[in-house]
């Protein structure tokens, strides 16, 4: 298990060298999008319209931050549960997205798309939203402002602490529950 400092957008080479269990301190540009923004992006793609973000190498953070306090760029900003974005992730990976950041398990289709397109799934600590917000240095709503916490934001992060959960070669960090030990 290695510790890397990496820059986002992620290069293909960086994403492919990561393995489950690696720690990444990520700096650079990260986009926020959760349920409603994903649906909207998907609709725009269906219509053949331009997207409000550059997908090549993009890192998408599944988060709906709380409002910023005076003197802060953002409120608390930890990950939301990722499976709700599973139906959208493979399409975004096929268009160049190199990583998503969330918490919780992904389905087989997402894991397969990580292999197909050399991408990774990062976990951040769920429920540590105050702490994670200290790594966010700039935040700007770039689309869908009417969605409030679900708007699409462009963040500049510094050393955001992430764990590689699923890598591009089929690795998985989450443990399988020990059903037998629990008597199931």
């Amino acid at each position, binding site marked *: 298990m290695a510790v890397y400092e990496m820059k986002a957008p992620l290069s293909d080479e960086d994403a492919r060298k990561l393995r489950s269990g690696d720690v990444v301190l990520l700096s650079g540009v990260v986009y926020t999008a959760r349920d409603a923004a994903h649906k909207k992006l998907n609709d725009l793609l269906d219509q053949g319209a331009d997207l409000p973000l550059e997908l090549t190498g993009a890192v998408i953070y599944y988060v709906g931050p709380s409002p910023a306090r005076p003197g802060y760029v953002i409120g*608390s900003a930890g990950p939301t549960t990722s499976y709700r974005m599973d139906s959208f992730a493979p399409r975004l990976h096929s268009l160049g997205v190199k990583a998503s950041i969330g918490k*919780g398990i992904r389905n087989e289709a997402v894991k397969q798309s990580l292999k197909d397109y050399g991408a990774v799934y990062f976990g951040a*600590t*769920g429920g540590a*939203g105050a*702490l994670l917000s200290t790594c966010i240095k700039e935040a700007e709503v770039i689309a869908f402002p009417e969605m409030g916490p679900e708007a699409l934001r462009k963040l500049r992060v510094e050393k955001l*602490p992430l764990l590689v959960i699923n890598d591009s070669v089929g690795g998985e960090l989450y443990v399988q529950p*020990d059903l037998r030990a629990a008597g199931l």
Partner: protein
Amino acid sequence: MKRISAQAVTKAVRDMCISANRYQPEDVKAAIKAGEAGEDSPTAKEVFRQLSENIDLAAGTGLPLCQDTGLAVLFVTLGQEVYVEGNLSEAINEGVRQGYGEGLLRKSACDPFSRKNTGDNTPAVIHYDIVPGEALRIAFMAKGGGAENMSRVMMLAPAEGWEGVKKFVLTRVAESRSNPCPPIIIGIGIGGTFEHSAKLAKLALMRKLDDVNPEPDLAAKEEELLGLVNRLGIGPMGLGGRHTALGLKILTSPCHIASFPLAVNIQCHSSRHEEVEL
């Protein structure tokens, strides 16, 4: 007869929304500190360390503990000798509106179909109980979506009994894995009707982690099932470890002779709730 103004209710609810989202209750804080010492794996220790640091940071800065500041759930116990001057439900919703607005908390309430945000985190989910006496007690919980989504109600057959309960709860926790931000807290409601079991499960989450069920039989069941849950080894954030759950609380009520309602309400480690008496 005791008179309480609607404004006093609004102020109390407003203050609880802000403070519960900022300060983790002492029992939860203690369990998280103890968790770090009780884990062997460096990854599990590191998760607990980050959670402790997050708790201190929120208390120090006023940032909410988690960006998901929850749907507002309130349990109101109204003494029948209390006269509330004004509209009690509206006073509570106004408290939520002010707390989430002025406290810069996230507004997470939306229409189920259009998904349009209501803009002020109302309406709150309010449960009322009428009791004898002159006190008005209001308990508030900020209930996040990630853990709530992992919750279920099941109508067991009476013959399934305790074995059926164990199997259902363990399967639910196993399937939830890392989704509800483990280490989790499990509220279990058994009995009553379909909806009453769910209310009991949520009320169970209001209990302190270190309390002991006054019914010895239920106390033993809570301990047994918590032990089994932790043998699943899911651990903090699903990365493996001894602490899949920090607590498991059961509340029961008599039910129909044909039924065995069972509700499992999953709560994350960010168990935010407070109570006031007016």
